[in-house]
């Protein structure tokens, strides 16, 4: 056990799994960088997550590609059908718009439409989320795990800390279904205690980093940390909350959420995506349908507004739900 960043935890999971299984390989743009230039392998990935893997495993296991997202996703799908276990990097998760067909019409459908006779064990890595003050703008800030959750055939993972990131990445690589692994950019530098050895965190099992009696707060990805901060502040006001981090949105741990809502009678759902047809609405519908008679107050969704993520700092700060916004929502349902 040692303190590792979210970035290092993902890197370590991939390195250890690549060492353990020769079928695991990386494919994507600028995984090591520098190909066709002075120093092949000199970059280590756009976000530094793949640092050192080219040096350790070489070009056969760290497959550098041109900027061709559809071809990357298709190649990963084809290699997986033939028995490989590719980890395909999409860099910014927003770029899934360029290659949606290969993800939602091809790999998501293979098993079902081929009569359950094939597997497609691909992991797609997507850097997601806004970073308050980063100015990444409308095409480099989205958290598209919410739309990907709606496609049968795909699994969707959203780790909220380094410990989860490693365990969930190992589970994702070993999983026989296509998995979208959303890495929260704002968390790459965050660190916590992470075991050095290999361990799995099973999909569909939520974590509950805070336990309380008054309100259930379900939060995703970057919002988990902010929800914890808000809840810790409110303890001084005598309000205690469950904070639920689903960790995977497909499958999702509905049971833990419903049990908590039945016990607290109040539900806040927090995500940094715009609200329409999103995860917060999904969880709200779950509670409304199955825990309606336990509710003491209306369900509250805390989301970004229905706008793209803006560039200007003031607007960007207003776009991503803040600790204060979450705390206000909790006070609101308690009043």
């Amino acid at each position, binding site marked *: 056990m040692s303190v590792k960043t979210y970035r290092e935890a993902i890197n370590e999971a991939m390195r250890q799994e690549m060492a353990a299984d020769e079928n695991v*390989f990386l*494919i994507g743009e600028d995984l090591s960088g520098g190909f066709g230039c002075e120093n092949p392998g000199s970059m280590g990935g756009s976000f530094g997550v793949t640092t050192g893997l080219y040096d350790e495993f070489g070009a*056969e296991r760290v*497959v550098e*590609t*041109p900027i*061709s997202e*559809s*071809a*990357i*996703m*298709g*190649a*990963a*799908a*084809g*290699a*997986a*059908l*033939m*028995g*490989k276990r*590719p980890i395909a990097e999409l860099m910014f998760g927003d770029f899934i718009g360029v290659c949606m*067909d*290969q993800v939602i*019409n*091809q790999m998501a*459908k*293979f*098993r*079902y*439409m*081929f*009569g*359950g*006779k*094939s*597997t497609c064990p691909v992991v797609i890595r997507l850097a997601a989320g806004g970073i308050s003050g980063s100015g990444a703008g409308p095409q480099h800030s989205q958290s598209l795990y919410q739309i990907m959750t709606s496609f*049968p*055939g795909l*699994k969707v993972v959203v780790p909220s800390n380094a410990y989860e990131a490693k365990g969930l990445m190992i589970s994702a690589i070993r*999983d*026989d*279904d296509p998995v979208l692994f959303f890495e929260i950019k704002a968390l790459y530098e965050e660190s916590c205690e992470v075991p050095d050895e290999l361990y799995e965190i099973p999909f*569909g099992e939520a974590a509950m980093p805070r336990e309380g009696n008054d309100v259930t707060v379900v939060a995703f990805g970057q919002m988990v940390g902010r929800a914890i901060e808000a809840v810790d502040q409110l303890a001084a006001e005598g309000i205690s909350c469950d904070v639920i981090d689903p960790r995977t949105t497909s*499958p999702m741990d509905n049971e833990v959420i419903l049990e908590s809502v039945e016990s607290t009678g109040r539900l806040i759902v927090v995500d940094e995506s715009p609200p329409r047809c999103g995860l917060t609405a999904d969880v709200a519908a779950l509670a409304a349908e199955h825990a309606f008679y336990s509710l003491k107050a209306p369900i509250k969704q805390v989301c970004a507004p229905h706008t793209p993520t803006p560039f200007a700092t003031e607007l960007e700060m207003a776009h991503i739900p803040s600790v204060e916004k979450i705390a206000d929502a909790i006070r609101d349902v308690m009043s």
Partner: protein
Amino acid sequence: MATSKARLKKLGLDKAKLISAYRSMKTIREFEERINTEVNNGRLAGFYHLYSGQEANAAGVCEHLGEKDSIISTHRGHGHCIARGANVAEMMLEMWGSSDGLCKGRGGTMHVADVNKGILGANGIVGGGPPISVGAALSGKMNKDNSVHVSFSGDGSVNQGTVFEAMNLAVVLQVPALFVVEDNFYGEFTGRDYQTGCDDLRARTEAFGMPVKKVDGSDFFEVYETAGEMIEYCRSGKGPAGLILEAGRFHGHFTGDPEPYRPKGEVKYLRKEKDPLKKFAADMGKTDALSAKDLAQIDDEVMALIDEAVDAAIAGPRWEPSRINEDVYVSY
């Protein structure tokens, strides 16, 4: 090119191989014509993209392929799957959506697949297949197993970005991928000359950095010879290659297509002058490689196979709707 005994010998086409090729093409033809009949008589619902007229493309390529090789196909995919050895009776069950179908009736006409036999599926998305085939070829290169991976796609697919991306990636990674472009003159209901801005598709494809040849897809021997060269090129580790096969389709884009966009007499001409089966049979007559009796016997066997397959498909087991959730995931 006229086919001679010497040419058959040069191509290594002995009697067993000729029988295999003819059986493959005849099976495709009768499968497709029977589907057309069954749709017209109302016993089969849905829309089907028929391959009649293009049989030599699939057979001429697939007759070269071995166990570790793979193909990926298109919405007009029955022919490729049959030529690659898919179980015809199970394919017919699939057409009827039976739970005993090759894909348990979940995929249907546009998703016939048998991954264990190297059939990565017919594919309902135009241009969807080539990137996947590049991945299969990448796995072959990693395994160092000398396999070759073939994507079939039509003249309508060649202006999809996915196909450009796949061709470039295959060249960059130097993988054993053969891109077979089947030019049947139409992408859906629009002519190839309108859709493809340049007037030399072969040269355009070659500009990606791989050798590309173009031959008459109605002539099995032309296809077989050239496909053999290109597959050998890929197998030898030199990287990807392309093959453009020109052969018109005898039917519309789909069953029920009224075809107002086609010139009068085109299909009649194709059926008379460009029928791959007739041309093959004529070549057999000239070379005495297979007798009329040999061919008639294959015809009879194929007709019986298709008749039995249709009867079995119509009587095939159906789904219990409560089982709709099965096989979405390996585990969930």
